[in-house]
Every structure is written in C-alpha cells, then in structure tokens.
C-alpha cells in the first residue's frame, strides 16, 4: 500500500512582479479553472503520482477583519503557493517536479522574493515547504495509477457486457467467466493494466502506528489537569462564543464571478479558503489542539471513503500560516459548490464549527459544535467571502468521481475474487 502525502510550497511574491506572475499562471490553463496537463510551465500530466495540484496567489483575504478586535492587521503581502497531493513521500514528489519541470518552476518562483536563479531548485522548494497540520485523504493507499487502471477496466467491461436479462445464476457465472477471460486477454496484450499494490513502506507503517497510539496516550496524559480546568475552560469558551462578533457581509458580485468562473468545468471542483484566527491565547491554543485531533481522526478513523457523512471529498487539508495568525483550508470535491456547501451545512456542520469557529467572524456557535454553519445564509456568505480564487488547478483524473472510483474498485475486487457463487456473480455483473 502506498500512502498519500500533501505538499505545500509557499513564498512571498517580489514587489512589482504580481502582474507578470498572474499572466504566467493564466497561460497554464486551457480554460479557466482547468490546468492544461501539458502546459509548458508545469506539465502536471507527466507526473504519474500526482492526484491534484494547484497554484494560488494568496492575498490578505479577510485579514482586515482583525480590526473587529481592535487589532491592526499585519502586512503579509502576496504569496505564491504550490500545493498538491501525491502518492508516496512529498519530498520525492518535489524532487521529481524540480528535476522534470525545472525551467518552468524557476520561471514561476522567479517571481518570488529571494529566489536565486543559481541555487539548487529542489533545495529551495524544500526550504519553502510548509507542514500541513491536518490532512484528509478519502482512501489512504489508493494511488493515481490504481484509479486510472480500474477506470479503464470499468470502461472496458461496461462497453462489453450484454445488457440483457440473465435467465439463471449459472448464466451469470458463465458470463462473468467470459468477461474475465476477455480482461485477461487485454492484460496479456498490454491494453489493460492491473498492477498489484506496492508493499507498505515499513517506516510509514511504524510511524502511523505510533501516531495512532501516541495521540490518545498524549490525550490521556494531559487529561487530569484538563479535567480540573474544565469548568473554567467551558466558562471561557461560552463567554467567548457570546462575545465574539459574527461578521458575514455579502461578498461582492465581482468576487463571486471570479470564483464561479473557475467552477463546475467538470465533475470535480476545488475549494481554497483562508482566514485569520481570533486573537487571544484561548483560540490560539485551541486551534493546534483541534487540528491534531482532526488529523488523527482523518488518518485512523475516516480513511476509508468518507469524512463522517461526506463521501465526496478527495483530499482536504488545514494549514496554519504566518505563525498561527491564519489558517488555510484547501479541498478537492465532487459535485458543484452549492451541493458541497449543502453537505457542509446539513451533514457535518458540527465538524466545520469545531475548527472554523476559531476564525474571525464565523457564524455564532454554541459549545463549539452547535449552530455556526447551520446558520445557512450567514455561513454561505462567510465561506464565499473567505474563498480565494484557485488560478491553476490540476485534476489527475478528470471525469472520475469518488463514487465511480468506489464502484470501479468493487469491480476489480470482484474480478480477482475466487470461488464466486451465482448470486455474487450476478451482483458483480450488475456493477457494470
């Protein structure tokens, strides 16, 4: 099993270089919001382990909201971000990007402060990488190659299966055997590939086990003092929830247009949002603890096809930027934006509230999980106002949704399963 990793390179844009950078980024897409996989700057499509990637010029979105707390916003300037999700270690993916798209990456990051054209590119990328505090992967271990291979298998079988009723279970078994023989012939001819999974890296396996056990152990260790402090913590939380200002003005029509232009070009979409964390030690301390918990939950509980009730998120991540001043959220999801927000409100509002209620202006929550995103109109304005246009977005398997991926995996499993009964053979044929 090959685990997936997030990578994120971030660097300040040099003064006066923004326009040129934006023009360069725009040239990488074949349509707004759809990266050309063969674009000359960073030909994403040539990287076989790359699931999704995006390039964003991050501005000071929502930082001005700090003034609600009488705090003057820090001058953060513009940043160029390259982020993505890959199979295997992020470091290896960055090395590969540096090696195989060196000129393009130098052109891109040449717009950033302190970029030395003569320096080692890979080392520069590593030096400007930022750790992802919480990361969600829909199915840990599913590789780009597997998605492509199983998708091709499904197309092959779906085109060939006779769409007529089957008279008996024996007929179903016969048809299944026949289709399997056809697949085997295709595989031998090299037209279909069904690679076996790679062995799980032992280091990753050990680290994952340590993480699975270590975090609860840590929680257990700190629980006695926390328990003692809990009345104060609860009081503090509620008083902050009552006094924190709710701030969700309507986003401008121009901002909405800029976002929507990039959306719904295919079955999968991107979402990037950023916002400042509420000032004060309570929230600043709460955020890393919650992110640790979310990361643990994503790695060890919700790693098999669904994040609580939401089954349409491929990858999602939370990253603390600027020393805890703000948090970035980025995800790749199936369906349109309105349906994604609908899932957020109707299925997992509690999960959103848990972390995002620590952001300035979030719709008022109760006990950290109640209300908040359920305040529909307020939440919808808030999320759009904090969303950042994703200038360049690459989808490694456009047109393939998570539901397709799940079905394709079941087709593959059914294909490789031995000793299949009549009912199972029929159930398998019905997947096609």
């Amino acid at each position: 099993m090959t685990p997936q990793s997030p990578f994120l390179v971030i660097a300040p844009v040099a003064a006066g270089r923004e326009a040129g950078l934006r023009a360069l980024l725009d040239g990488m897409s074949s349509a707004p919001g759809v990266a050309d996989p063969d674009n000359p700057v960073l030909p994403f499509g040539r990287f076989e382990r790359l699931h999704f990637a995006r390039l964003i010029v991050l501005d000071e979105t929502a930082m001005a909201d700090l003034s609600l707390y009488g705090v003057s916003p820090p001058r953060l300037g513009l940043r160029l971000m390259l982020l993505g999700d890959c199979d295997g270690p992020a470091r290896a993916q960055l090395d590969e990007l540096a090696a195989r798209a060196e000129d393009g990456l130098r052109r891109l990051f040449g717009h950033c402060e302190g970029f030395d054209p003569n320096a080692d590119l890979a080392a520069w990328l590593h030096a400007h990488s930022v750790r992802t505090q919480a990361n969600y992967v829909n199915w840990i271990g599913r590789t780009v190659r597997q998605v492509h291979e199983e998708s091709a298998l499904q197309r092959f079988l779906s085109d060939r299966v006779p769409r007529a009723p089957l008279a008996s279970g024996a007929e179903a078994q016969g048809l299944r055997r026949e289709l399997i023989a056809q697949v085997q012939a295709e595989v031998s001819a090299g037209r279909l590939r069904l690679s076996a999974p790679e062995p799980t890296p032992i280091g990753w396996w050990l680290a994952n086990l340590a993480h699975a056990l270590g975090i609860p152990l840590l929680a257990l260790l700190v629980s006695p003092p926390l328990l003692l402090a809990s009345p104060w913590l609860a009081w503090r939380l509620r008083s902050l929830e009552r006094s924190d200002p709710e701030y969700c003005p309507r986003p401008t029509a121009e901002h909405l247009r800029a976002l929507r232009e990039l959306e719904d070009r295919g079955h999968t979409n991107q979402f990037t949002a950023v916002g400042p964390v509420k000032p004060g030690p309570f929230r600043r301390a709460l955020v890393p603890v919650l992110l640790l918990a979310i990361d643990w939950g994503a790695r060890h509980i919700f790693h098999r096809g669904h994040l609580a009730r939401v089954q349409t998120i491929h990858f999602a991540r939370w990253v603390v930027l600027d020393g805890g001043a703000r948090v970035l959220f980025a995800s790749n999801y199936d369906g349109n934006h309105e349906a994604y927000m609908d899932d957020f409100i109707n299925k997992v509002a509690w999960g959103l509230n848990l972390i995002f209620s620590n952001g300035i202006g979030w719709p008022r929550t109760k006990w950290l999980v109640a209300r908040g995103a359920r305040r529909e109109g307020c939440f919808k304005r808030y999320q759009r106002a904090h969303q950042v246009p994703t200038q360049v977005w690459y989808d490694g398997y456009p047109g393939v949704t998570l539901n397709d991926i799940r079905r394709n995996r079941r087709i593959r499993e059914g294909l490789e399963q031995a000793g299949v009964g009549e009912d199972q053979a029929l159930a398998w044929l019905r997947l096609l």
Partner: protein
Amino acid sequence: MSNETVNPRPVELDDVQGILRFGFSHHTEGCFLLLQVKNPAAACAWLSNVPLANAVVARPAPATALQVAISSPGLTALGVPEEVAVGFSEEFRAGMAGDNDRSRRLGDLDCSHPSSWRWGAGEATPHVLLMLYALPGKLAAWRRELEAQWAAGFSQLAALDTTDHGGREPFGFRDGISQPEIDWERRRPAEDHDRLEYDNLTCLGEFLLGYPNEYGLYTDRPLLDSGRDPDGLLPRAEERPELADLGRNGSYLVLRELRQDVAGFWRWLAEQAGGGDRARGWAEAMVGRTVDGKPLIPEAQGLNGFNYDADPEGLRCPIGAHVRRANPRNADYPPGTHGIISRVRRFLGFDARVLPQDLVASTRFHRILRRGRAFGEPPSLEQALADPSPTAQTGLHFICLGANIGRQFEFVQSAWIVGTRFAGLPGEGDPLLGHRAPGPDGHPTDCFSVPRVDGPDQRLCGLPRFISVCGGGYFFLPGIRALRFLTSPR
C-alpha cells in the same frame, strides 16, 4: 438572521399574491405577458392601483385573477433606488441569463444558451411579468381591457399563451402532482433540528419571504430603515421590528419557456423500443410515473404518499427518472431506525449499508412550488407515430416559486437535473431535460439506465434533446403592499 421566533403572527393572506396558495386550476385560460417599461411614471401609476388576486379563499372564484412579478432590471426601470434593490438575492440581481457560468450550471448550453433565446437575455430582458388567469371564455376581453390600461406605461416584449390539457404536460403525462404542502397555519415550529422522515409539510419561509424557513431562520431580503417607508406601507420585519420588510409575503418566481419536441420524443422511443406500447413503457420509466401519474413504487399511498427508501437501487423507479431527480424524497439522515446507536452510526457515516443512499439527503431544503402551464397543441403518441410531418410548437411555461433561488431552483436544476452523477449514476443527465452535451472528459451523458434485478442495467443511449429552453428569467413576486410601495411616487 435570527433564531428567535417572535410569537408567530398569522399570515396576512390578503397581502400575499394568490399564486402562492392556489394553482388557479379552475382558471383554465391563462396568459403571461412580458412587458418593458417605456414610461416609468405611467407604469408605476398603473401598477400601484391595479387589483391583484390575493391568497384569501374566495367563493365563488372570481372570473379573473391578475398576478404581477418584477425582474431586477424592472426594479431599476421603475425607479426603485439601488440602496433598496441591493437587498434582494444575488441570483435575482444577476438574472437567469446573467453570465455564462450560471448558464453552464443550469445546463443552458448550445441551442438552449441565452444567446439564442426568444426573450430573457440582453435587450430582450422583461421588466414586468403579468400573469393573467381567467375562467373559461373570460380571458380575451379582459386581456384587451388590461392592455388598454397598461399600454401607456409599458411595451409588450412577448406574450406567452397557454393551453389547458386537463393537467397534462405536452408529452401526455399528468403533471404538477408533487407539490410541497405549505405550512400556512405556521404549525411547524421555527427551530433547527434534524428530520428523520421525509415530510411534505414545508415551512412557510421556504416559499414566502419574511417567515422562518426550514433552518428556523429568516432568508435574506431587503429590510429598510423605517425612514424609507414614512407612510408605513410595508409590514415590519418579524425578527427586527424596527425595520420595514420589503420581502414579506413576497417570493421569487422562476419562469422558463421550455419547448418540447413531442413528436420527436415518441418517434425516437418507438424506434428504439420497437413499437408504441414499449415506447410508453420506456417513457414511464424516464418520467418515474405512469402516464396517469401513478408512482412506480407499488406501496405508494395515493399519488404522493411514498418515498424511495425501500428502493435504494432503483429497481422499481430508476434512480435517474425525472421525478426522482427533481424530488428525491429523502430525510436528513439515510434510512434507519430511531434508536440512538443507529442514529450515531448514520451521523458519523459508519453505517456502510446506507452510505450509497446518503449521497443525496435533506430534500426539504430543495423544494420548489410549481405553477407552470402548457402551450401549443401537442400530438398524442398515436398521432406522432401515424403522421411524420412536423408539428406545431408546444411545450411548457415552467414556473416555480421559492424564497431562495440558489438553494431551490438552481440547486435542483444544476445538482439534480443537469448533474450527470446524481445519486451515484454512471454519467447521465435527466432523461427529459438533459442537454446531452458530452462531459468535459468527452464521455457521453445521453444514456438512460434502468437497473434490473436479473442482470446489468438496461440502457437506452444516444437520447436526442427533447426539451430546449427558449427564454427565461428571475422575478420578484412582491407582497401586495410591497408592490404598492415599490410603485408609489418618490
């Protein structure tokens, strides 16, 4: 927005336009006039006095009923200040034909793109929609009478005539069966909690602005400082009594002129299926009801008492059937028992058996109130097959009402009707309304799958486009006092 519910005031039915409560089904004659303002003063003068049918039950039914709705450019043309208009929803202000991104989401592509519409885009955007309903024989003279009144203020952009086919749409199916039941008595408490059963009763605020919606909240709408309404023409906002509520008792109205290729529909199906009877069978699977409107779910009680919980695979009613897409009839949680353990498992997504059914949930936030009318004289199945000559234009003036265009009409249209992966489908648009354009990955979307228990899905592929859009717009259907306010002299 506020969670607090003030004592539920009774609905001011005499301030609500009747179309929100009645379909005017006795008024079998109808006509929709799309007007543009040519003289704002004369237009306002007429609108501020014209009698409108309200939502109070009148017996006997009046011979005629007039309803008025205004588009966003219409508000400007009538002289409504921008500071007032800015409080309307973003979708209404942008308009149905506002930009290509919206058209893409609504599936208005190719021949249905606003650039080829008869009305509704650019210079041909209507300002005011007049909806005329009349008892049999009463329309023509009344229409002329009205025209003599409005002609000073307006010019006519288009007139959408309607025909009555006894509650059937042009393909011949009984139409308008599934409608939300609006909670006019305000029985449903205005609070936010999960609903474990699909229920047709819907909060007033889903359809009328100024009342709590299914989240127990008040939908955004223009709330004005009382200084803007010195004469107290407008009701006050329930949740903020210091403000005048321009939205209260009003709604948004979506109008789309849908042209249906009835002859093409039956001929194509008969050719594929081999004969008229089998064509009808396929058509019923595509619609999700029989021609007479009966649900395909055998346990259904009456025409509307059913859901799809016991048919997760679409073996009785295909997942992709039109009525199943337009109203998936599901609760906030996937099916299960009411026990606490079952609820927690479903809440966290751990009940693997029902996860496939949880791709679409909470239908109650996406209901629409339909008030469409047919036009033209469609051929029957038999006529379509017997006579291959082209037939006159026919179709549906689709009308729906709702307090939130984005969450209701646009959501249903884009995510459920146009969306080719609705509830896990393998990649197909709505069998009736689908645009058939291949997906961005080049895969076709023009199939219709019928799951079966004894083999792989049966599939009909290469579906032509049966329905195209030739015009459309978003309107505000004001409360009667709000209309007087909007058209009062400034």
